[in-house]
Each structure stands twice: as structure tokens, then as C-alpha cells.
């Protein structure tokens, strides 16, 4: 790809006596924008911590089944039968013991009424919450990027048309729509049933209506990029629309796409939690962080630990992605002061 502002590549063959700014004897090398950004990112501690935690959570989500079998965590095993080692007080339904039933066997305690292990349910729930958030982000991105680029580059009536569509989508009362759709597609639709259906519906509802946010940003960036010389140059060389869109403009948009994706992830995690909370997300016995939170809210007075654990998980995930996204934006933005 051609660069709007090219870095000057300095080829050093012979080593001159003078080292310009290096004390360690390295040859002078120019760095690509990616390398510059990566260096800047590495220096941003908060972002690195956020990124590490985010990666850790993603790994937990991907390997959740392995982790469960490895640590003997069963998210669906109930422990509420007092004749078989029950962990629940039959009269109140609350976990026996303190801190919501925490013990060496159940590190984060157990749920009231059913006695299910909370740590197991959190691990099990991680893949649902993150998968839905991820896929919804991907869906928003795909639609938003394509439509944004097309609208920004072509302008004219195409831009007007797509922008009006964006306005319509932005005007939708998103939460109400999400509730309505999720509630009506609960049991069977489009040949899917049960968990795959619920997850697909969640991904669709969250991802499909959020694309204008990405779309607008990309459109704005495209408009500012299309007037640059490199685009004119490419056109002059005979490039047509699609080539320019996908080979010239898109690579320059990767930075904002990446940044806003990492910022969209946490809001999608929260949205999924909200839909579970409202009872239109996934169905029992599948666990998800939002589902756990929803069930725990009723117990906030009698068993607060039940509420704290999934709440903290969601908080950590959202914070991690936010920090990483912030740091990424700072690192990628050439105008922000480099350190």
C-alpha cells in the first residue's frame, strides 16, 4: 500500500562512526507506523494491563470447557439436597456458611436455592458473554465499515441514502427493539432451537442495530482520506472504485476500526448482560454473566456475595477492554504526543 506520509527508509550499509541517537550500537532503522504505535502502546502501562486481562479472559472463554474438566468444575451440578451433602439451608434457600458459601471446594461460593458452584458458572458463562460481544462487534464492524466506506467515498446520492439509513437505525429505540425481538424468538425460529438460537438472536440484535456508530466514524474518516494525494494518484493510475476502497482506503482505516472495536466490546458485553437481566437472553441452565447478575439482584440483601462476583467479572472485562482501547487509540493517533 502507499502511505500518505511515507517514512524515510534509511539503508545503512557501512557503519559510520557517528551513532545518531543510539547508545547500544544498533543500526539506525526506520520504523513502520505499526512499530511506532506498538512501542507507544508498550509504554502505556494501563493499556498493557488492560490488554493482558482482556487476552486472559478471552483465553478463559475459549478454553472454558477444558478448564472446567481440568478443575472438576460443573456449572450445572446442584448441591441442594440435604441428604446428599447439600450446601443450602432448606428454610431460607441461602447458602450455608459465610460469604455466600465460600469454601475450599467452592472458591467463590454457591448459588442460593440450587447450590451450583459460582466459579464454575462464571467460567461457563464467560464464553457466552464474550462470544456474543465479540460476534456482535464483528457484525457491527462488517456492516458499518462497508457502508461507511462506500458512503464516504462515493458521496452524492449514495452517501445521502446511506446516511439516512444510518439516521433511521440510530433513531430506533434499541433496547425496546431488542427486547421485542428476543422475546418473540424464544423457542424456535429459522431452523434453530435452544442455545444456538438464543445466541444467534442476541448477536443479531446487538450487532445489527449498532452498525451506524461504526458506519458514521468510518464515513467521516473516509471523507477526509479521499481527498488525499495518494487517492488521486491511484485514480490517475487507472484504479477503479473497489480497488481504491479496499486496497487504498481500508488499510488506513484499520486503526480507527481497531480502536472503536475495542471500545464497542465492553458496551456489547453490558448490552448482553442487560438482555439476560430482562429475561430475553439465554435460557437456563446455560450460564452467562448477565444471567448470573440477573438472578443475583433479587438476593442483594440476603446473599450479597452472589451479586458481587458476576458484577466484578463484568466490571473487570469492561474495564480491561476500555483501558486497552484507550491506550490503543492514543498509540495509533499520530497527532497525540509520542512519549
Amino acid at each position, binding site marked *: 500500500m502507499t502511505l500518505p506520509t511515507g517514512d524515510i527508509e534509511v539503508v545503512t550499509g557501512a557503519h559510520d562512526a557517528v551513532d545518531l541517537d543510539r547508545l547500544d550500537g544498533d543500526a539506525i532503522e526506520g520504523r513502520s507506523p505499526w512499530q511506532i504505535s506498538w512501542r507507544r502502546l508498550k509504554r502505556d502501562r494501563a493499556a498493557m494491563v488492560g490488554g493482558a486481562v482482556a487476552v486472559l479472559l478471552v483465553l478463559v472463554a475459549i478454553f472454558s470447557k477444558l478448564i472446567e474438566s481440568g478443575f472438576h468444575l460443573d456449572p450445572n451440578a446442584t448441591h441442594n439436597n440435604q*441428604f446428599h451433602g447439600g450446601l443450602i439451608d*432448606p428454610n*431460607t434457600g441461602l447458602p450455608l456458611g459465610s460469604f455466600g458459601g465460600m469454601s475450599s471446594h467452592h472458591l467463590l461460593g454457591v448459588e442460593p436455592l440450587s447450590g451450583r458452584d459460582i466459579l464454575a458458572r462464571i467460567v461457563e458463562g464467560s464464553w457466552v458473554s464474550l462470544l456474543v460481544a465479540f460476534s456482535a462487534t464483528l457484525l457491527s464492524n462488517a456492516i458499518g465499515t462497508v457502508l461507511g466506506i462506500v458512503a464516504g467515498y462515493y458521496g452524492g446520492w449514495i452517501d445521502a441514502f446511506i446516511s439516512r439509513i444510518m439516521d433511521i437505525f440510530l433513531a430506533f429505540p434499541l433496547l425496546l427493539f431488542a427486547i421485542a425481538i428476543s422475546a418473540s424468538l424464544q423457542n424456535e425460529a429459522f431452523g434453530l432451537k435452544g442455545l444456538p438460537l438464543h445466541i444467534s438472536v442476541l448477536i443479531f440484535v446487538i450487532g445489527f442495530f449498532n452498525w451506524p456508530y461504526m458506519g458514521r466514524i468510518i464515513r467521516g474518516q473516509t471523507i477526509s482520506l479521499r481527498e488525499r494525494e495518494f487517492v488521486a494518484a491511484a485514480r490517475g493510475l487507472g484504479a477503479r472504485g473497489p480497488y481504491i476502497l479496499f486496497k487504498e482506503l481500508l488499510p488506513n482505516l484499520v486503526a480507527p476500526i481497531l480502536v472503536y472495536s475495542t471500545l464497542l466490546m465492553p458496551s456489547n458485553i453490558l448490552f448482553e448482560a442487560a438482555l439476560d437481566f430482562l429475561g430475553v437472553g439465554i435460557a437456563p*441452565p446455560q450460564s452467562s454473566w448477565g444471567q448470573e447478575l440477573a438472578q443475583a439482584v433479587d438476593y442483594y*440483601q440476603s446473599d450479597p456475595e452472589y451479586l458481587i462476583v458476576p458484577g466484578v467479572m463484568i466490571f473487570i472485562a469492561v474495564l480491561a477492554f476500555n483501558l486497552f482501547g484507550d491506550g490503543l487509540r492514543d498509540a495509533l493517533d499520530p497527532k497525540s504526543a509520542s512519549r
Partner: protein
Amino acid sequence: MQHRRSMSGMITLAVIGALALSACSSSKGSGSSNTPAAKTGYNAANTSLVNASTNKNGTVKYALSSTPDSLDPGNTYYAWVWDFSRLYASPLTTFKPVPGNDSLTLVPNLATSLGVPSDGGKTWTYHLRPNLKYSDGSPITAADVKYAVERSNYAPDVFSNGPTYFNAVLAQNTPAYAGPYKDKTGGLKSIETPDATTIVFHLASAFADFDYLVSNPQTAPVPQAKDTGANYVKNIISSGPYEFKSYTDSRGAVLVPNPNWSAASGLVGAQNSKEIDLTFNQEQVSIDNDLMAGNLTGDVAGAGTAAASQPKILNDATLKANADDALSGALSYVAMSTKVKPLDNLDCRKAVEYAIDKVSAQNAYGGPNRGDIATTVLPPNVVGYTKYDDYPTPSNSGDVAKAKDELTKCGHPSGFDIGLSARADRPNEISMATSIQASLKKVGINATIQQYPSGKYFSDFAGAPAFVHSHNIGLIMMAWAADWPTGYGFLDQIIAGDTIKASGNSNLSELNDPTVNQLLQQAIQNTDASARVKAWGQVDKQVMDDAAIVPMLYRKDLLYRPPSATNVFVTAAYGMYDYLTIGSTS
């Protein structure tokens, strides 16, 4: 009838003694035997009237976690509506609105006395009180009672919710009566109204429980000129102490005192408040919180609080004093469809009976405060109950080995997939369903939980056999109370072959066992009471031999009454607070 979460049960007089003991009244040991039971404290309303008051100026506020199946007295099958509808619809007889055992006594309401049987119990005659008027001032006549029975029992395409006992019991027209909306030729010949205050029912065969039968809201008069069929619910003409000021589907209703009703006429009821507000679709836990804060007068469903609210109430002395753990007379159970494969095979059904861990399910529902483990169809307080267990498991905790044996016998040794339906707005029921799902998983049966709203559970989903078959729903969460306090009143609608309906079905197992059908029919015609009692027990055993249901809990419900609620007591007839007398100080 169906229970909203709890069932209102009709408890027979014979076993009321046990009931009285279960209500642990807090009389603090005064030696005199004349001291009445304490009128305050935990469980006080089980046996006595709490917070007596003559204040008639309060506003009573009720909330409901879903919508009613219908407030139309001819189209409802939920116990709470049968209780509540007496405020605006007066049936021929009703249950005495007094606390304790006495509330199972039938008293005449619209009629001047209980029915007069003749012709060996095949003809029943009632005389209406004279000069009664509807809320709009028009006179109430016997023809209106006849019309009410015709529209509720003979027009299933318009009204599918309620039971159809009258249709089964009354002598049929030839050709068969097509209902008042299709047949304009003068109605059912087996109900005669020789004059404006006399009504005579001619039955096809003797029916010993007829006075109980007419206590249900289907005999509340409906003026034919004002009947708009399915839309009548939006503008019900009242024959009770209250009339509708407004009604909005899915939102709620407001009732105000009916100026054309008076206690002096001898009708049962009272006008103890100046307004009654009913709000639908409130989330259960927020209803509980509103009750505890005093913002509501009652949870009209009468099915008890959500399990999550239970520890809050039971662990706080002040709140606990406002609660009553009422015996609801209902049975929570899992109905097994005998038509959905592979549960059409008896051994597969027996596998489910052995697999379920009932203790775990009981605790998931809310623990022993919510009910005792059940092993029979009839609860202990219905005449005919005999204690036995067809499918015993150690500590009622399930028997994986036996279940797997049965699975092998039925040809599915590694289990099978099946649907399990439950009501979405009842968190306790979902919790119990999840526990059952976990038990079944242990033997390889993969149950998928399908959730449906209570308001349409019986009309559109679990109670519509076509829907059940097409969605592979083999297991259905259900709760049921007697339609009246005898074995027949409990059993008929849920296990007799001729009660299976296309919509509003209560025989969720679709059981059609000739032995069961015959026993029931013979018994209800038998004038010998002890022979009837024996027969109910036999029917119970046969249904369990057929493994048509898995009995889970003999239900108790934790009800809550705020201090602002006046004249509150539990009626044994419906297993919840009697809505005829409740007022409010706010």
C-alpha cells in the same frame, strides 16, 4: 383449577384438623381455653381474622406478575380469579368468607338456599333472591344464570379457559346444543327457568357434588343483551359488591362499589374499601418488595412470594409477623404427555419418576416452607387421600440405577431428548424446572426448558395438545388445586379422558385410561359417601400406576399481608386470602 403459583385448594372438612395444627398460631400461653387464637403474628391469618377494621375508605391495591387468563367469570380457571371474581360476579352458592375450617362450608349466595335435589339426585332446583339488580340497574333473572352456564360451557371456540363440568353433567339437547352464539333457537333444554327467580337443572345422571359445582363463577348471571362474547371482559356487568370502573387488557382494572348491591339483600360479600386497583404484569420480586414497603395491599395471585424474597421475610422478625405460610391445598407436579414420544411408553415414564430428585427440586422451589414432598395425586387434605408411593427412592432423592433400568426396558438405554415447559414469569417454577433438568441429565435424559407466559400457558401452549406435540413437550410443569373439595373435584379435569380439550386443556398428560374413566363416573353417581371416598383413592393409585404425572409438592405458599391491609384471613376454599373482605387503611 389452576394455581397461579400456588393453588388455591379446596380442603375437605374431614381433614381440617390437620390444617389447624399446621397454622402455628402465636397464642402466647394464656391458660384459659376461651382465649381466641392470636390475631397477629406469623401464620395468624391461617386461622383468624387479622387487623379487623370498619374503615371503608381505603384504596386496596393489588398487583399480578402476569395477566389473568381472563376476568370474564365464564372464561377463567385460575384459583385467584375464582376468589376475586366474587367481587363482581355472584354465583348461586359460595364458600363462607370466614377464617379457618369454616371457610369450606358452602352457603347460598345468589340463591336463597342450597339446591334442592330430586329425582334421585338428577334434578336440582334453586330459587334466586328477589329484586336483585345488576350494576347498571337492570334486574337479575334466572334466565341470566342459565345464559351464563350456556355461554361458558357450550361455546368452546369463544371461551376455552374454564372447566366444562356443566356440559358433561347436564342432559344434552338432541341434536347437540351449539352454544348461544351459534344456536339462536332457545338454548339448553336441560336448564329450565319456570319464572324469573327459579332455575332447575336436569342432569344426565346423578351428581352428588352439584352444590359445589354451582359455586364456581360460571353460574354468575350474565345479561344476554349486554353480552359481547370474547369482548365481554372489557365491560362486565356486575352482580357483586363491586363494579368495574375501568378495564384495560394487559394493564389492569379499577373497581368501585356497586351502588345496586347491598348486604341487606342477603348476598355474600362486603364493600370494605372505596376502590380496588388491579395492576398486571408487575415483576414478581418487585411485587414482593412493594408489599414489604407497604405500597401494595396484596399479591392477588395468592401463590406466595418469589423464593428470593423468602429469606428477607423469614429472617426479619417484623416482616415475618406479617407473613402466613398457608396450606394451599394444591399439588405441584410434572405432567408427562402420554402422546409425545418416547413418553408414550410406560417404562420411559417410569424412568422419569425414578430419576427426579424431589428433595433438590423442593429446595430449588424454596424449601419445605413451600410444600412437602408429594407422592400421590391427591394432597393429604382432600378426601380420598391415601399415603403410598408407587416409585419410592432413597430419601426421595431419586434413584439413578432404577431409572436407567426403566430406560433400558423402554428401549432408550442412553436416554433421550425431550422438551420441558414452564411458566416464564414464575421464577420458582423455572428454578424447580432447572433442578428437574439436572436430575434427568444424570440418567441421560436431556430436557430442554421452554418458557411460556402464565396468562396464555393453558390457552395457547401447554394446554393446547397440538402445540405440545409439535414442540416435543413431553414434560409440563403444572400446579393444580381441587375445583371443589372432594376427590372428583380434584381429579376429574386432570385425568379423565373426556376432559381433554384442544385449548385450555388441564389433562396435560392426555390420559385416557378406561379404568380411570369408569371408576370416576361410577363414583360420582354413587350416593354412598364412604364408597365414593374409597373410589377416589383407587383412581389416585391407578393414575400413578399409569405414571401419568410426577407429583412434586403438596404446596404451601408464603403469603404476605402489609399492616395496612384490614380484615385479612386465609380461606381454606382457595388456599389464599379471601378477597371479599379485604380493605385498607391507606
